[in-house]
């Protein structure tokens, strides 16, 4: 599943409106709690474990993809 789809579903926004620059600074729905839910959803969807540093880094769609690649996830 493309990360944009996961983020879009989780935050209730049209996935097509998301790009790598979409971040917790640009998307109102991307709150602290939503971010924690995103981390949990990502771990479940891609079968990876994100460290605290990963969670801290993955605050944009582009950064999330970078973290996922580093953890060996494919979509």
């Amino acid at each position, binding site marked *: 599943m493309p990360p944009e789809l996961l983020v879009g579903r989780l935050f209730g926004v049209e996935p097509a409106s998301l790009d790598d620059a979409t971040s*917790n*600074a640009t998307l109102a729905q*991307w*709150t*602290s*709690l*939503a*971010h*924690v839910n995103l*981390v949990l959803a990502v771990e479940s969807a891609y079968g990876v474990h994100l*460290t*605290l*540093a990963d*969670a*801290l880094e993955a*605050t944009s769609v582009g950064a999330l993809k970078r973290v996922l690649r580093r953890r060996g996830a494919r979509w």
Partner: protein
Amino acid sequence: MVGAGTAPAAPAVPLTGVIRAGPDQAELLAAFYRQAWDPAATADSVRAALRAAAARNPVRPGEPPPAFLFLADGRPVGHLGTIPVRLWTAAGERSAHWLKGLMVLPSHRNGPVGFYLVREALAQVELALSAAVAPEARALLRAAGMAEVGAIPNAVRLLHPARVLRAVDADSAAALPRPARAAAARIRRSPLLCALAGAAVRMACGAWAGVRGGTGGVYAVVLPEWRTGELARLWARTRRGLSAAPSRDPYSLRARYGGEGGYRLLGVYEGGVLAGFAAVRPPRAEGDPRLGGARVATLSEIVAPVDRPAVLRALLRGAETVARSLDADALLCSASHPRVRAALRRRAWLPFPGNVHLLLREPPGAPPLPRGLDAWWLTRGDSHADEVF
């Protein structure tokens, strides 16, 4: 395995994660405080504050209260403190910690920092309490494992209604019903109407309080000094009627109201015995920006046996007098217990919905605490909640 001292030291890896921060981390705490709250904070000032907090820690005397920092590559970007308290329950006293001072630097908001700070704090303290206002903060606390008990109801006594009417702006009046909002807008535009409406409200409140809120000859006085023995006996009598309450023993009261804040302390005496205590926080010098600069004092604390309604009303009347002497336009109180709320109504305080929410997390296996807010004796002073409403 390489023996110690035979190999070059590995480069320190900057830590990302949550640490418990005490005197050994004073430099990190000071670095965070400088960015978040106090540009003048230093490691020495942090150590001094930790020593003072340790000295008044009622849970582990002599130890600094637990505090936590979230480090990102070794830099502090988030903080959560605690305030240790003794909690009175029907089954006896227990130790608890208010979670307080959750702050994340703007550069790291809307990320995982707050959640992990709360989760770590909950892992390290047993019984945790929190007073939160913002829906986001409450959701975060719930997600980390806390349960919401309810919103502590607010009440306000208008002391200078005309000044409040003039000061309150459209945003502040948004909570009023639509007809009242429209009327308030019309009144605000006219100084004459403001004065007339203010006088009418003042007379109506005074008449109501005179008829319904009498004190039967019981009066409050300003306490000139801390009377530890009298306060201890008062708390021992008061707590017998309560199911759950942060302790109001004299040491807790003094730690809360005896230092900064300029609190005015009131007592009610019956037959030479201290029968009630209250603390009033003066208005800020610059007024309250949330109410258009109106000067709002706060009734931060009220302690009296629940079976002495006349004492409660006498404390309220005394608080109103003190607030007027401080040139306050209004006096605010958040109180959970039905007996206090009843006394507030009888003294013509206007109720409005609470926005400070109590949340708690109990350790597994412990006797359960009441889950209804009516069973709790909470006032605005708990958890330093004066700053939020």
